[in-house]
């Protein structure tokens, strides 16, 4: 019975691994696979368990060097080290229960200090309980049941989370479709306005000719001035050469104008095909939404600015959006991977699309300013088509 339970557990972990990390990159595979292997080994033997905890400690040590907010990781590392030491010193007794409680509180601490996805955290907690209880249970039958439960838990958790993420992304995609319809309408009304002008063109010329025939230069001049003013009315701010890009940038700029945000805009890409229209709208729309959102959170009196620069430089589509932000705003570098709100989803979508086009993304911030730069290689985009 004992050996069966271990085998089942191994199998379930392997399944979980394949399910979760497919497709793999080599580095990720090596790291994750060793974690899983040691985890499996740990269920066989207390020494392995010690090594497992030590491994986790090392993992968090690495994270300390990378993380911006170091304190939680430092605390967690120390805790794992203590845990590893205790397990190696103690045979399982009532002290194991203390250990178990300690791990749990550790997890709670992690949950509170870092912005993780809540359901995932709760599942992890339950999983921890199950794994640690394994070592306390003497009866092989019970142990078998626990192992199966723990395995099923991991599978269900990851599937559930995968499903939830996909579902929210779907909802988001649907609202994007709606956004697209809006932009298409905007492009259409823009063109209708232009067509109207073309239609009137003939009449304007006739009027001007009539004035000039009668030597009424002053009137002709006045008429031209009038026309110029009207032209500015129909003229949207951005003429990039790409109607979809114009639509999305112009509509966001209108929004900025309504909020009295000073803008500095330079957008020009010509008529050559760029990336897919929907992708373009998603990237630019999200970037500008996030920028405007941050600006509107600023207190009155703080300097506001939205700068949009989109152009083709050599062989790159270069996008740079700069926005002012509240002095008090705290930026979480892991926002996109941890938050499931509109902004988090937006950032995830952008990252995903930029990666799809083998592009590069750079986010930089200083007190009061945030800059996002995106570079998409046109050579790669055109090769794809």
């Amino acid at each position, binding site marked *: 019975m004992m050996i069966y339970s271990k085998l089942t557990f191994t199998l379930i972990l392997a399944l979980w691994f394949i399910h979760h990390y497919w497709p793999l990159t080599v580095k990720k595979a090596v790291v994750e696979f060793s974690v899983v292997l040691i985890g499996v080994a740990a269920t066989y033997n207390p020494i392995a368990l010690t090594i497992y905890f030590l491994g986790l400690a090392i993992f968090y040590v690495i994270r300390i060097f990378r993380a911006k907010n170091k304190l939680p990781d430092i605390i967690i590392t120390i805790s794992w080290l203590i845990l590893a030491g205790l397990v190696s010193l103690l045979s399982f007794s009532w002290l194991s229960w203390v250990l178990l409680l300690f791990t749990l509180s550790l997890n709670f601490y992690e949950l509170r200090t870092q912005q993780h996805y809540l359901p995932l955290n709760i599942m992890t907690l339950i999983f921890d309980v199950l794994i640690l209880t394994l070592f306390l249970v003497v009866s092989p039958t019970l142990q078998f049941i626990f192992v199966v439960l723990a395995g099923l838990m991991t599978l269900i958790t990851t599937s559930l989370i995968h499903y939830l993420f996909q579902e929210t992304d779907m909802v988001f995609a649907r609202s994007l479709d709606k956004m697209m319809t809006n932009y298409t309408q905007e492009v259409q009304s823009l063109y209708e306005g232009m067509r109207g002008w073309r239609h009137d063109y003939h009449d304007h010329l006739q009027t001007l000719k009539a004035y000039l025939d009668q030597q009424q230069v002053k009137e002709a001049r006045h008429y031209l001035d009038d026309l110029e003013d009207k032209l500015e009315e129909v003229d949207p701010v951005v003429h990039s050469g790409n109607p979809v890009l114009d639509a999305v940038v112009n509509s966001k700029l209108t929004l900025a104008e309504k909020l009295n945000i000073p803008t500095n805009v330079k957008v020009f890409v*010509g*008529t050559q095909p760029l990336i897919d229209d929907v992708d373009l709208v998603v990237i630019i729309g999200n970037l500008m939404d996030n920028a405007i959102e941050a600006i509107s959170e600023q207190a009155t009196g703080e300097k506001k600015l939205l700068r949009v620069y989109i152009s*083709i*430089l*050599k062989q790159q589509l*270069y996008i*740079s959006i700069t926005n002012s932000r509240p002095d008090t705003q705290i930026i979480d570098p892991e926002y996109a991977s941890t938050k499931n709100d509109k902004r988090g989803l937006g950032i995830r979508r952008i990252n995903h699309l930029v990666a799809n086009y083998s592009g590069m993304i*750079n986010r930089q911030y200083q007190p009061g300013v945030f800059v996002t*730069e995106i570079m998409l290689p046109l*050579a790669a985009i055109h090769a794809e088509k």
Partner: protein
Amino acid sequence: MKIAIVEDNHQTQQQIITLLTAIDSASQPINATCFNSGEAFLFEFSETQNFDLILLDIQLGGQDGMTVARKIRKSDPQVALAFLSNYDDYVFDGYDVGALGYIMKPLTADKLTALLQKVELQTQVAYFLAEIDNESIKIPLFDIIYFEVQNHQINIHTQTKTYQINAQLKEIQPQLTADFIQIYRSLIVNLSFISQLTNNALTLNDGTTLPVSRQQHTPVKQAFLAHYRGLAHDDLF
């Protein structure tokens, strides 16, 4: 300053001349010549190569502006070039002719003044001096894609050919501008020609893939971004 205007629209020619006349002064004398086609200009250019700036319309009857620019570069890698273009004819060419800028029509006094200032600042195209077979050869830096060490020699890959010189990367580095960055022990690349950058490699515009060492990845990424940020800052339109 001697300026050539290659433009097939007579009205635009007049417009540019008017603007140039306004700038023309004793301290900055301007002498402009108009050409109705690329062919007409190239014919003249083959005789007298003494222009300080060539303004090229992208959409020309006959050869387009980009083709004319390439032909100019074949005989003169140094002369300042600028393109004039409309919203609908922006050309993106893999071949880098080292143009000063793309100027959106209509050309205004501001844009023209900025361009002329730029010409004055950059009349000197930077060269790389290569000793090949006891002969000094000048290779314009904007034409060099990358330097590669091979068998104790350096291969200089330009857009059209490859030169070989006997030197070490360390020795040539002082000759290079900030556009060049070392990506690997044996490689120095011109940032202008990088198309994509992944974790351990980069792809050039022509599809060549080169390795990027681990410790150089972050500096290369930053330099690549900074290079484009710089271009974004001084583009003229």
